[in-house]
């Protein structure tokens, strides 16, 4: 049975305070949420998943090539129909033999993904990433975004002691109609609250009922991450149990992140594991509209760096928030764009995600992209594939201002404003090449020639409605 060996988290840089939203609407419907994360125009569930998974891999001791299973949980896949986990496999450089599992449809997806990771034969990556949206006047108030990734191996420091579920048809509590990206609820407060409490209680009692041979006393848990669409729900949902208040506090992060959908409980778990001692027990209870609840009990501790991620960030105003999330208008650009066909794009994925360059076997110089003749000796050679360093130096930079973007980037510019494009010098084995790439997670005009930046995977643009992803560069925090 696998154990949790490492945890990584990813939170968008942008944040908005409850006060901003309350000012705009005269009220606020996210109880106990003081601040939440805001996915920027180039961020979505996939880019957050990549960042969290990279962090988990960095913190763990398993090479990407040794991962055998990847399980992804999200209620906001970038496309309605299309497997998303393979994009993650590509971006992380996992082997093509990796078994992929995608869990979606409800916030219970995080539990299902973890289940499959624990049961996996070999090292597994479990990633829960979400960026839900709703009607800005109503359901959207509490929605944030984030991702948590768990690296599971046989020798991890956190053991899962048991798991139990309560399953029922609980339709309509939180749902997204076909063809829309906005979540809605029935808004029958009393009914919803009771349903959640009954499901959570039942799952926890099954766990306590020793179904899995677990010795479990809910009053004795040290930490608990419970379904958290807002900050009051964890204590309301566990009202029939006797989980200590301090334990719930360890695993409740919604107050600073917002409702991160399927990533909510996983992020809470990351916080609880950070705060735990080696012998501490942590309870997780996932709830999903339509399906019920799943409870899991863990023992041990592991670091995720969530606190540091929470402490970063940059505040936006409510109008900026609406723009960034794409609530304000859409762009319909005439004149098409520079057409790079899908087959051509497909051939560049390794270069876009993994910064793969070619080393010339004759002169040793690097060429990027690694095709055609060597950029230095101009001989036509079979390049040796190398991955460039993921940090590099800015060699030239410009700001593309409002309205000045090529058609492919008009939507991003409308949402996110002016952006910078740099030539970034990346090194491998004493040789270097330069790539053109956008800067992200930074205000335009603040990165100059000579500054150090690091590669992050972001959405570049969409063509025919299909997002294309690749490397952008973010400044390195001092």
């Amino acid at each position, binding site marked *: 049975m696998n154990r949790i060996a490492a945890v990584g988290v990813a939170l968008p840089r942008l944040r908005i305070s409850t006060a901003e939203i309350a000012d705009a609407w005269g009220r606020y419907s996210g109880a106990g949420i003081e601040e939440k994360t805001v996915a920027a125009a180039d961020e979505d569930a996939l880019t957050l998943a990549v960042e969290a998974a990279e962090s988990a891999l960095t913190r763990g001791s398993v090479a990407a090539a040794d991962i055998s299973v990847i399980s992804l949980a999200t209620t906001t896949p970038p496309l309605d129909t299309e497997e998303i986990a393979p994009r993650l496999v590509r971006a992380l450089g996992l082997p093509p033999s990796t078994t992929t599992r995608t869990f979606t449809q409800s916030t219970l997806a995080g539990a299902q993904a973890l289940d499959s990771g624990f049961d996996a034969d070999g090292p597994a990556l479990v990633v829960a990433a979400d960026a839900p949206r709703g009607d800005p006047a109503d359901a959207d108030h509490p929605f944030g975004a984030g991702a948590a990734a768990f690296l599971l191996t046989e020798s991890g420091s956190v053991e899962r002691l048991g798991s139990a579920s309560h399953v029922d048809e609980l339709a309509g509590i939180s749902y997204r109609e076909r063809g829309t990206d906005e979540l809605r609820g029935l808004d029958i407060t009393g009914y919803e609250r009771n349903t959640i409490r009954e499901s959570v209680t039942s799952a926890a009692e099954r766990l306590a009922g020793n179904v899995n041979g677990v010795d479990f006393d809910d009053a004795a848990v040290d930490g608990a991450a419970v379904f958290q669409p807002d900050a009051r729900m964890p204590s309301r949902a566990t009202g029939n149990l006797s989980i200590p208040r301090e334990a719930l506090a360890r695993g409740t992060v919604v107050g600073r992140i917002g409702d991160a959908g399927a990533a909510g409980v996983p992020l809470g778990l990351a916080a609880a594991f950070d705060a735990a001692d080696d012998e501490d027990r942590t309870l997780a209870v996932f709830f999903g509209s339509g399906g019920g609840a799943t409870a899991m009990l863990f023992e041990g501790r592991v670091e995720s760096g969530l606190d540091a991620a929470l402490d970063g960030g940059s505040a936006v105003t409510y109008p900026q928030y609406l723009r960034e999330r794409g609530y304000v208008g859409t762009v319909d*650009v*005439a*004149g*098409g*764009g*520079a057409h*790079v066909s899908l087959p*051509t794009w497909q051939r*560049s994925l390794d270069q876009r995600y993994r910064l793969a360059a070619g080393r010339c076997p004759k002169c040793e110089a690097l060429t*990027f*992209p690694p095709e055609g003749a060597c*950029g230095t000796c101009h001989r036509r050679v079979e390049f040796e594939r190398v991955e460039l360093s993921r940090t590099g130096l800015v*060699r*030239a*930079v*410009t*700001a*593309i*201002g409002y309205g*000045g*973007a*090529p*058609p*492919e*980037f008009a939507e*991003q510019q409308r949402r996110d404003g002016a*952006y910078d*494009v*740099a*030539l970034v010098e990346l090194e491998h084995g004493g040789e270097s090449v*330069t*790539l*053109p*790439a*956008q800067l992200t997670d930074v205000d*335009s*005009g603040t990165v*100059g*020639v*000579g500054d150090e930046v690091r590669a992050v995977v972001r959405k*570049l*643009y969409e063509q025919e409605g299909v997002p294309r992803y690749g490397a952008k560069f973010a400044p390195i925090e001092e």
Partner: protein
Amino acid sequence: MTEAYVVGAGQSPFGSFPDESYRSLFETAFDCATASVDAEFDPKRIDEAFVGTLGVGGRQLGLSGPAVTEHVGLHGIPTTRVENACAASGYAFRSAVASVRAGLADVALAGGYEVMTDTSSDHTKWWLGVSGETEWERLSGTTFSGVYAQMASAHMNEYGTTTEDLSRVAVKNHANGARNPNAHLGFECSLEDAMAAPTVADPLNLYHCCPTTDGASAVIVASEEVAFELSDDPVRVAGMGASSGHVGLFQRDTFTSIPATRRAAEAAYDEAEIGPSDVDVAEVHDCFAIAELVAYEDLGFCAAGESATLLREGVTDPDGELPVNTSGGLKSKGHPIGATGTGQITEIFEQLRGEAHTQVDSPRYGLAHNVGGSGGGATVHLFERADGGER
């Protein structure tokens, strides 16, 4: 191999002409070129034509050459479209000279045209973007001005070049263009204006960028024997140089120089057996202010990093030691992509014959420098007055 001479050259006005078509603009340029030939000139003497155009707007992407030569009555001759982005007609001229030198033609026509102001700004952006490296540069979100802005940022960082230096290019070229009735933006501008303009792609502002322009130009090239029959004062093609380079800026070893220009210049100087200090007047490719500064260095007018000093000291003013862009350059005269290269040659032809609007003092050698994209291609041509400078 025979020597080649320019016996006639002309251009349409450059600007925005909603009532003209690419054919009518080419016709105007063609008529000006034939009219500038000293002797009575029968266009039927033209044996072959090379026409440069990017085809902005997609108006006639295929067979763009014959589409204009048939319009001016050049029926049945071989006509070739040359597409090398902004260096299209620089390359068309090269082909015309090659044809004459090789004896394939006694008289060859080189020209170009572009209509850029009759489409929406989104559509124009698409057409400007297609000359940059598409897969990586364009799809990182860079515009064409963005690529030159990156060059400017590197030049500023490496050599301490300032936005004021960039603005001085605009001031000089606008002053020259104000005396050119064919210029698109024929007004003068102050350094204050040129400094205060809105940013286009930092550090470049509006005054550091050339306009999108409609226009056409044409040059008539003749063999030595025919040249002196047609012209009292033909201009000798003293040296030709051309080079390709990496299409993407990011693929080059340097961001503060255009290697294609350096190679083209070296070839042209070698053939002409002269050096940069022999050049008396030059038209250089100033699509963006940084491009003119980089050109000074790449063409050997000064050492790397010293272009701003050259400009500041007035060396490239009309009354300086080496006047540059007396026509107003791309900045003021305008940049109708396909027409630019032979438009520059038209200015040099007029300078060497003493017929220019901003005439410099009895030049012997003139240089025309044309760049495609951000340096994916370049041509450098050197011209000499046929009488070797005696007038």
